[in-house]
C-alpha cells in the first residue's frame, strides 16, 4: 500500500478507471450499463459483455477495438475486480506485446530493444493463450495465475521478440502481466518518480512506447492527438512517434480509452475522464521527470494537478489491492530502473527537454502570429518590433475606447457646456487634459487656426477629451498616448510658417480636421509618423522661403543700392 503512495496518481488512474469501469457494471447490472468489450478473437472482433459473451463484431478491421478491449481487459484484471477477464481470453497482439513489454521493463542495455522487440513482434497465438490465462483469475491472486500466463507469454514473446530478454522474476512478471497496459504506465511513471535516473528511464520507456507505436502497425494506429481529444478506440498505444511525452500517457490512456470506449455511455464518461487523467499523469510524470522538461511540465502540471485532484477523489473509492499490487510491481521496476545507463538517461532527458522547449516555442510563435494578425498594418518580421507595435496598438485602442465612452457620456451633458465648448478649447484643451501630450499645443493651434490640418490631426484625439476635461473633468486616467515628438513642432512653427504647412499638407474643412482622425488613434499615430517626415522638410523649406524674400530683398536693396549709387 505504502509503496503505491508515491505513485498513487498513476495508480489512481488505474484504480479509478478500473473501479469506475468495474463499479459501473456492478452497480448497474442493467444491460446498458454493462460493460461491453470488444475482443479480438482469432481474427474477429467480438463484442462481449463483462458477464457474458454475446455477439461478434466485424472482422480484422476492428483490430483496434479488440486491442482496446484487450487493454481494458488487462486493466480490470489488474485491479482484480474485473470479471471482464473472461474477455481477456481473446487478448491478442496488443496484450501480448504489452505483456512481454511489461514483463521485461528494465533490462539494462536491452531495455529499449526488448521493449521494442516485444511489442513489435507479438505473436498471436500467445496472445490468445495469455488472454485465457489472464482472463480467468482475479487480480488478487495475481501471482498464481500469472505464472501460467507467463509461460506462454515468454514463449510467444521470445518467439517473436528477441530472446535476449532475461527471464523476469515471476512476481514482477505477474505484476506486469496482470497490469498490462496499466502496468506499463505505472512502470514508466514509477521509474520516473522513484529513481533519480527516472527521467531517462521514463524517456526510455516513452521512447520505447514510441518505437512500439511506430512499428506496431498492425495493432494500433497511434493517434495520440485524436486519442487525447477523446477516448477513442483507435489507440491502445496511441502515441505519435515524435511525441514521447504523449507516448507514455497515451498508452495509459489507451487502456483507459479502451475501457471507456467499450463501456456504456455512463461508464465511458468516467473512463474518459480517468483516461484523461491517465494521460495527464503520464504526461506529468514524463515531463516532470526531475529537471528534464520544465516548460512542458508546467503547463501539464496544472492540468494534471486538477485531474489528479479529481482522481484522488475517485481514488477514495479505488482499490487498495491494486495499489498493493502496484507497489510490488513498482519495487522491481525501480530496481530495473536503476540499472539503466546514465548516458542514455541523460540523452533522453535532454531529448525530452528539447521537445518540450520546442513545443513551448511553437506555442509562443503561434500566439505571436495571431497577435500580428490582429494588429493592423503590421509588416514587421522580427518579434521585438512586432511586440512594440502591439504595445502601441493596444495603447491606442485603449485610448480610443476611453474617448468614445467619454464621448458617449459627453453627449447628454454637452448641452450646458456647448457655449463654453468652443472658446476654452483652444486654451483649456491641452492644459486641462494634463496628458503631457504635444497634442495639447496642437489643439491650441488647431483652434486658433481651424484651417490647419496638421495640428488638427494632432489635436483630434485630444480634443474631445480636452473638452470633456474642461467641462466634466477627467473621469478616468487617460493613458499617455505615445505621441511623436514632433507634435509640438507644428505649434512652434505654425506662427512662422503657416503657409508652408498649409501648402504642404493641404487644407480641409475647418470643423472636420480636428475630429476626423480621432476615431482611429492608431491611424493618427501612424499618420503622425508619416507627417513627421514632411514636417521637418516644411520647416526647412519654410525657413529658407521666409528668409529668401528677405535675402532677395536685401539683395535687391544691395543691388539697387549699388546701381543706385
Amino acid at each position: 500500500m505504502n509503496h503505491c503512495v508515491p505513485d498513487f496518481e498513476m495508480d489512481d488512474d488505474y484504480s479509478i478507471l478500473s473501479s469506475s469501469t468495474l463499479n459501473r457494471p456492478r452497480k448497474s447490472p442493467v444491460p446498458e450499463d454493462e460493460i461491453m468489450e470488444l475482443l479480438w478473437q482469432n481474427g474477429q472482433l467480438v463484442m462481449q459483455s463483462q458477464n457474458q459473451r454475446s455477439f461478434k463484431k466485424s472482422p480484422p478491421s476492428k483490430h483496434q477495438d479488440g486491442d482496446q478491449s484487450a487493454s481494458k481487459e488487462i486493466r480490470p484484471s489488474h485491479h482484480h475486480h474485473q470479471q471482464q477477464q473472461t474477455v481477456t481470453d481473446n487478448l491478442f497482439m496488443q496484450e501480448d506485446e504489452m505483456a512481454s513489454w511489461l514483463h521485461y521493463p528494465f533490462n539494462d542495455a536491452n531495455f529499449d530493444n526488448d521493449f521494442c522487440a516485444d511489442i513489435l513482434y507479438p505473436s498471436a497465438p500467445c496472445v490468445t493463450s495469455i488472454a485465457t490465462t489472464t482472463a480467468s483469475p482475479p487480480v488478487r491472486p495475481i501471482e498464481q495465475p500469472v505464472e501460467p500466463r507467463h509461460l506462454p507469454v515468454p514463449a510467444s514473446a521470445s518467439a517473436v521478440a528477441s530472446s535476449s530478454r532475461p527471464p523476469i522474476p515471476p512476481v514482477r512478471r505477474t505484476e506486469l502481466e496482470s497490469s498490462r497496459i496499466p502496468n506499463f504506465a505505472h512502470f514508466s511513471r514509477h521509474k520516473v518518480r522513484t529513481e533519480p535516473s527516472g527521467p531517462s528511464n521514463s524517456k526510455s520507456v516513452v521512447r520505447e512506447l514510441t518505437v512500439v507505436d511506430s512499428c506496431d502497425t498492425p495493432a494500433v494506429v497511434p493517434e495520440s492527438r485524436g486519442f487525447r481529444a477523446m477516448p477513442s478506440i483507435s489507440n491502445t498505444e496511441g502515441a505519435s512517434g515524435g511525441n514521447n511525452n504523449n507516448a507514455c500517457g497515451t498508452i495509459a490512456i489507451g487502456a483507459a480509452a479502451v475501457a471507456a470506449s467499450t463501456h456504456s455511455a455512463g461508464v465511458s464518461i468516467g473512463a474518459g475522464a480517468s483516461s484523461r487523467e491517465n494521460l495527464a499523469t503520464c504526461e506529468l510524470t514524463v515531463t516532470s521527470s526531475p529537471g528534464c522538461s520544465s516548460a512542458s511540465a508546467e503547463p501539464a502540471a496544472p492540468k494534471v494537478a486538477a485531474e489528479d485532484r479529481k482522481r484522488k477523489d475517485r481514488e477514495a473509492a479505488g482499490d487498495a489491492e491494486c495499489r498493493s499490487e502496484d507497489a510490488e510491481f513498482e519495487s522491481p521496476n525501480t530496481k530495473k530502473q536503476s540499472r539503466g545507463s546514465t548516458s542514455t538517461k541523460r540523452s533522453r532527458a535532454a531529448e525530452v527537454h528539447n521537445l518540450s522547449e520546442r513545443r513551448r516555442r511553437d506555442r509562443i510563435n503561434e500566439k505571436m502570429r495571431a497577435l500580428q494578425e490582429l494588429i493592423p498594418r503590421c509588416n514587421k518580421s522580427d518579434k521585438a518590433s512586432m511586440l512594440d507595435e502591439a504595445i502601441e496598438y493596444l495603447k491606442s485602442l485603449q485610448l480610443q475606447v476611453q474617448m468614445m465612452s467619454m464621448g458617449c457620456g459627453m453627449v447628454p451633458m454637452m448641452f450646458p457646456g456647448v457655449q463654453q465648448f468652443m472658446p476654452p478649447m483652444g486654451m483649456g484643451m491641452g492644459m486641462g487634459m494634463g496628458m503631457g501630450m504635444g497634442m495639447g499645443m496642437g489643439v491650441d493651434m488647431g483652434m486658433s487656426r481651424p484651417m490647419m490640418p496638421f495640428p488638427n490631426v494632432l489635436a483630434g484625439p485630444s480634443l474631445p477629451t480636452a473638452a470633456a476635461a474642461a467641462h466634466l473633468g477627467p473621469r478616468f486616467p487617460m493613458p499617455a498616448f505615445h505621441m511623436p515628438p514632433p507634435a509640438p513642432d507644428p505649434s512652434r512653427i505654425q506662427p512662422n510658417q503657416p503657409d508652408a504647412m498649409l501648402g504642404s499638407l493641404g487644407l480641409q474643412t475647418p470643423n472636420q480636421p480636428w475630429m476626423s482622425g480621432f476615431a482611429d488613434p492608431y491611424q493618427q499615430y501612424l499618420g503622425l509618423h508619416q507627417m513627421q517626415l514632411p514636417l521637418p522638410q516644411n520647416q526647412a523649406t519654410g525657413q529658407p522661403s521666409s528668409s529668401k524674400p528677405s535675402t532677395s530683398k536685401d539683395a535687391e536693396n544691395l543691388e539697387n543700392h549699388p546701381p543706385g549709387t
Partner: protein
Amino acid sequence: MSSRRSRQSGVSRISDDQIIELVSKLRQHLPEIRERRSDKVSASKVLQETCSYIKNLHKEVDDLSERLSQLLSTIDADSAEAAIIRSLIM
C-alpha cells in the same frame, strides 16, 4: 551542434531579452485582474491575453461606435457635439 546552439543562442539571447522586456511591458497594459503571479506568467500566456484583450477592445469600439451613431441621430446634426461624435465614430 554546440556551435549551432551557441550561434542560435547568441542571436536568440538578444531577442529573448528584448522579448521578455516587451512581454512584461505588454503585460502592464493588460487588465490587472488577469494577472496572477506576475513572475510566473509565461510569454505565451501574455500573448494570448493580449490577443483576447485586443479583440475585446475591438468589440468595445464597435459597440461604442454604434452607440455614438445612435446618439448622433438624437442630437442636432449641426451642433458641435455632433461633429465630435462623428469624429469619434470615424
